């Protein structure tokens, strides 16, 4: 058994206050984080998402997304002296 001497009540109170304060801070921080994640997930479920957010892999949304333009590679000009007339 832990022997805390004549001032045991002060030591227990100090550690008790620390545990309660730190515990409350940890729980409040984690709960706030979870709450914001839930809210964001709910909004995304409703189809409200940031413009920069990646679209989900569902076929419905895929059809809404604009297909990427397939551009043929630009033909390079025929080889020849650049900048007009060759200097003599």
């Amino acid at each position, binding site marked *: 058994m*832990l*022997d*805390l*001497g*004549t*001032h*045991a009540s*002060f*030591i227990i*109170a*100090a*550690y008790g*206050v*620390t545990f309660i*304060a*730190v515990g*409350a*801070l*940890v729980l*409040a*921080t*984690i709960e*706030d*984080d979870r*709450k*914001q*994640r839930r*809210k*964001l997930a709910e*909004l995304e479920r*409703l189809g*409200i*998402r*940031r413009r*920069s957010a990646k679209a989900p892999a569902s076929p419905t949304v895929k059809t809404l997304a604009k297909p990427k333009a397939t551009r043929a590679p630009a033909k390079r000009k025929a080889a020849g002296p650049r900048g007009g007339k060759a200097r003599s």
Partner: protein
Amino acid sequence: MISLANPTRFLNLVDRVVPWLSALVVIVLGIGLYLSLFVAPPDYQQGETVKIMFVHVPSAWLGMFGYILIAIAALGTLIWRHPLADVAAKTAAPIGATFTFIALVTGSLWGKPMWGTYWVWDARLTSMLILLLLYLGLIALWQAIDEPGRAGRAAAILGLVGAINIPIIKFSVDWWNTLHQPESIFRAGGPTIDPSLLTPLFVMAIGFTALFVLLHLIAMRAEILRRRVHALQQTQVERAALAEA
């Protein structure tokens, strides 16, 4: 490092770091508590009440560390106007306030058996109480202003002005004749504490610091997500208004 200033990259980093840091906090604080409660010998003057120091001293350090973080972030807000700086400052305040509160309460609980009183208005204790009031003022300011940008700039100014209190706390025991004992750990000539007491103190300090960083990262992630949720809710309202029109 600069790339981490991007909120999305920062969130990815936090997601990766949090599980490892959580494990580190549990292990180090577990070892620290074991050393503090079961291994550390009683002090020749303080007896077993020296055990209070293992939670009091790290809490006091982190109370000041949190405010230094806010002051540095305030520069980031005012000079570079970076949103992550504002997020860092806002989320550090409740954590710093909690550790300052713990330092004040555990200090009082140590003071009663050692000094014969819970409280004296000496320079160290009073400046720590002012630190707690500054934290509460910052939290109130963020709560009072709705627009995050304006709240961040106002809080940054208060944060920078209040930073003058940090050197006052640190050097109060040298500048004034206080009941609080002078610096005994970070001093010229080395610590005056025996290694048998210094080891648990440092282990607890590392554990508390890791806990501070962990909670700060999680709180920053929550704040970034809160701002995203707020922006998306505004978009939702605008879409609903357009649909009705």
